[in-house]
C-alpha cells in the first residue's frame, strides 16, 4: 500500500473510532454488516469509474446505466421469462457495450469524456423512463427469484454478498491495474498519452478498455442494486451514484488529471463515504446535512494531499532537534505539469 492509502486508512479508523466513542452502536454487528453491504454495492462500480479517471477521463453515466439496465433486467426476468443466467449476461454485456460506445466516442471521435458521459447520463435515464413509461418495476409477489435475490443481496456466514463480490472484484482489478501490462499502460497514458503513443502503445484501445471496464462493472453492480431495492423506479434509481463513485475515487487518491490512483484507495474511499453517511444517521445529525458532511471531508482529504500542505507537515519535524532536515516528500519534486 502506498503512503496515500495508509493515510486514508488512518482517516477511516479515526472517523470510525470517534463515531464509536460517541455512539457505541456504531460498532454493533448489525450496523457494521449493513455498512459492509453498502460498501460492496458502491465499491464495485467505483473501481470501474476509477479506471476511467486514471486515464485522465471521467464517467458520469453509471447512475443512469443502473436505471436503464435495471429496468431491462427486471423486464427480462419477470415479463419475458428469460433464464436468469442469460439475463445477468445480457445486463453485464449491456454495460460493456455502453462503456465501449462511450470509449469509442472519446478516442475515435475525440470528444471530451465529460461531454460524452454527460450525454450518456441523460440518454440512458431518459431511455429507462420511456421503457417503463416512468412506472416502477419490481418482482411483484412472485418468489421465483428468491434464490437469485439471495445470491445478489443475501449473506453467507453473515457477510453480505455484495461485500464478498467487491473483494473479488477488487482483487482481480488490483492485479489488473497494478501488476498487468494493461494497468501499466493505463498509468502511462494518464501521465503522458503522447509519450505512451510514441512508445508504441495502442492508446485508443487501452482507453476504450477502461470505459468498457467501467460499463461492465456498472452492469454487475446493477444486479446487486436491483435486489437491494427489490424494485427499480427509473426516474430515481441510481441518481447521483456516479458522483459517489467519483468522490470515492478522488478520496482514494485518483487525480482527475489522470495517472494516479489505486484499487485499495478507491475501496477505502468508498468505505469512508459510507462511514460518513452512517455517522450522520447514528449520531443524530440532521440527515439533510448528509451531503455537506461528505463534501467537507472530501475537501479536507484532498487538501491534505496538496503538495503545499504536504510540504508543511514534515517541516514540523525539523523543529525537533536530532531529527535532521526533512527529506523531500516523494513526488513533491515533480516538475511543472502545466
Amino acid at each position: 500500500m502506498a503512503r496515500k492509502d495508509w493515510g486514508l486508512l488512518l482517516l477511516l479508523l479515526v472517523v470510525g473510532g470517534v463515531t464509536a466513542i460517541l455512539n457505541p452502536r456504531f460498532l454493533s454487528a448489525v450496523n457494521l454488516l449493513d455498512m459492509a453491504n453498502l460498501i460492496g454495492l458502491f465499491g464495485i462500480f467505483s473501481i470501474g469509474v476509477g479506471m476511467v479517471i486514471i486515464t485522465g477521463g471521467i464517467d458520469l453515466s453509471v447512475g443512469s446505466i443502473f436505471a436503464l439496465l435495471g429496468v431491462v433486467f427486471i423486464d427480462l426476468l419477470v415479463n419475458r421469462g428469460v433464464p436468469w443466467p442469460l439475463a445477468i449476461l445480457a445486463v453485464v454485456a449491456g454495460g460493456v457495450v455502453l462503456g465501449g460506445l462511450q470509449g469509442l466516442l472519446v478516442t475515435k471521435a475525440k470528444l471530451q469524456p465529460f461531454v460524452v458521459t454527460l450525454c450518456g447520463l441523460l440518454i440512458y435515464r431518459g431511455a429507462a423512463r420511456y421503457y417503463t413509461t416512468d412506472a416502477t418495476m419490481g418482482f411483484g409477489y412472485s418468489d421465483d427469484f428468491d434464490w437469485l435475490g439471495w445470491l445478489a443481496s443475501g449473506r453467507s456466514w453473515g457477510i453480505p454478498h455484495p461485500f464478498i463480490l467487491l473483494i473479488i472484484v477488487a482483487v482481480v482489478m488490483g492485479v489488473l491495474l497494478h501488476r498487468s501490462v494493461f494497468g501499466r499502460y493505463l498509468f502511462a497514458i494518464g501521465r503522458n498519452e503522447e509519450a505512451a503513443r510514441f512508445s508504441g502503445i495502442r492508446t485508443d484501445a487501452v482507453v476504450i478498455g477502461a470505459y468498457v471496464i467501467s460499463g461492465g462493472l456498472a452492469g454487475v453492480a446493477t444486479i446487486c442494486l436491483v435486489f437491494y431495492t427489490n424494485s427499480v423506479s427509473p426516474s430515481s434509481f441510481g441518481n447521483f451514484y456516479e458522483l459517489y463513485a467519483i468522490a470515492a475515487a478522488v478520496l482514494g487518491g485518483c487525480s482527475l488529471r489522470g495517472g494516479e490512483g489505486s484499487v485499495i484507495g478507491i475501496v477505502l474511499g468508498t468505505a469512508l463515504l459510507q462511514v460518513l453517511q452512517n455517522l450522520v444517521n447514528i449520531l443524530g445529525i440532521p440527515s439533510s446535512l448528509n451531503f455537506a458532511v461528505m463534501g467537507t471531508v472530501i475537501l479536507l482529504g484532498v487538501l491534505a494531499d496538496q503538495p503545499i500542505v504536504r510540504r508543511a507537515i514534515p517541516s514540523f519535524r525539523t523543529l525537533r532537534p536530532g531529527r535532521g532536515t526533512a527529506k523531500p516528500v516523494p513526488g513533491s519534486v515533480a516538475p511543472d505539469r502545466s
Partner: protein
Amino acid sequence: MAADTLLSLAGISKSYAGVRALVDVSLGVEAGTVLGLIGENGAGKSTLMKILGGVVQPDAGSIVIDGVPHGAMTVASAARAGIAFVHQELTVLDNLDVAANIFLGREAVAGGPLRLVRNRAMHDLARPLLQRLGADFGPETSVSKLLIAQRQLVEIARALSVDARVIIMDEPTSSLTLQETERLLQVIADLRASGVAVIYISHRLHEVKACADRVVCLRDGRVAGGLKRDEIEHNAMIRLMIGRDLRSLYTPPLASPGGEICVVDRVVTSAFPDRHLSFTLRRGEILGMAGLVGSGRTSLARALFGVDPILSGEVRLAGQAVTMRSPRQAIEQGIYLVPEDRKGEGLVLDMKLSENISLASMQRHARLNLIDRASETATAREQQASLRIKTPGVAVHAATLSGGNQQKVVLAKWLSMAPRLIIFDEPTRGIDVGAKGEIYTLMRALADDGVGVIMISSDMEEVIGVSDRVAVMHEGRISGVLDRPDFSELNVLRLAIGQPAEHLETVS
C-alpha cells in the same frame, strides 16, 4: 547615431542554469530605421527579444529607451515604453473580431459599473489603423475568417494602436507566401517612413537584405558583428553567422559505408503536401539532417515513425518496402524515434526509470500479461550500466534526472530492443557537454553495429562534427547532400536557405 537612438541595449548578459545564452550584447536602433537581426538557431536572438519584451530579466546590462534607462523591464513597462511584438507564432485570438483583438485588454468601455464594451467605438478606432496597413478586411471581421498573412496585419495594427515606436518582428514570414511577404516588406517600408523603428529577425537573408538599414549578427550569445546598408550581402551575412572554430567531434566509422539500409523514395509528408523528398541511408554511416527550423525535418521524422501519415512515396528498409501507420507499426519493424520534445514525447516523467525503459517492450517483460518486475528491473540495470545513466537507482522517477540522463533513458528504451533504424531529433538539445560526447559515441557504436542512424540537428557543430554525410532540407525538400570533403558551415547554410553549395575557396 547617438542623437536619435530610440532604443539601445548595453552589456546585456543572461545565463540559463549555467549556460550562457547572451554575453555582453550591445546594440541600438534609431527611429525610422529597420535593424536586421540574424544568427543561427540558438544564437541568442529569442532570448534577447524576450528581455526586450520584459518576459525574461537580464543578469546584467541596461536597456535605454529615449534616454531613459531601464534596469529590468516587465511586460507592462515594455509595452508602456512603446515596444511591440509580432510573433513567429501568431498570438491573435480567432474567436474574437479584428477590433477586439487590436484592443485586447484596452477595450473601449462605457462608464458605469458594468463597463460594457463599446464595440462600435472600437471598430471606428481600428478602421484607420487597418487602412494605414492597406488591409483588405474591416475591423468587424472575425479573425477565424482571416488568412495567416491577414492575421499578421492584425498583430501589426495592435502594435500601431499602442503607438509602438519599436516593432519587433520575429520570423514574420515563416508561414507567408511570396506575395504576402512582398506586401509585408512594403508595410515595413511604410512603418519606417512614418518614424517607427523595426527590428526584423529572419533566417531569410534576402528579406533582410531587402528591408534592413543595418544588420547585427548574434553568434553563441555574442554580437558577432554588424553590417551597414551597403555592406548587406548574402555572403557577408553568412560569414558573420559562421566564423567560429569547430572542435573536432568526428569519429570515423569502423568500416567504410556499405549497402543501403534505408531508402526514402519520393515521400510526401502532410506538412509539405506539394513537395516530395528522397534520400538513402547506408550501412555504417550517420546521416546528419540539417536545415532551418520549419524546413520539414521533424515532419519527416514523424512520418518515418508513423506519427503523421506518409501521403505518397515509399520507404524501403533493407530492400523491403515498409509501412508505418502508427508508431506501434514503426516500432514493430525496428524503426525508433528519439523525439525532439524529450519531456512531452520521449518520457513519462512521473514514472520510474525502469518503467520508462520497458514501456515499449512490455510484452517481453510479461508472462500471461502480468509484468515480471524482476526482468524489468534487470533490463533497466543493464541499460543503466551500459549507458552509464547517473541515477541513485532505477526506481527513481525520470523527472529527477538531468537532461542528459533523461535522454539516455529514452535511448535505453530503444537499445533494450532490436533497432534497425533510429532517428535522433535534436539529440543533444539542452544537454551538457559531457553527456553530449557520450551520446555521440553511442550513435557511432550503433552505426558500426549496422543500425541506420539519422541525426536531425540544428547545432552546426554537431551536424558537421558527427555526421558522415549531411542531407540539408529547405522548405520540405532535400536541397542537397554533402559528403565529408564538402562539409562546411557555409555550404550547409547555403543549402538551408535554398542556394546551391559552393566550394570554400571562393569565400575567403
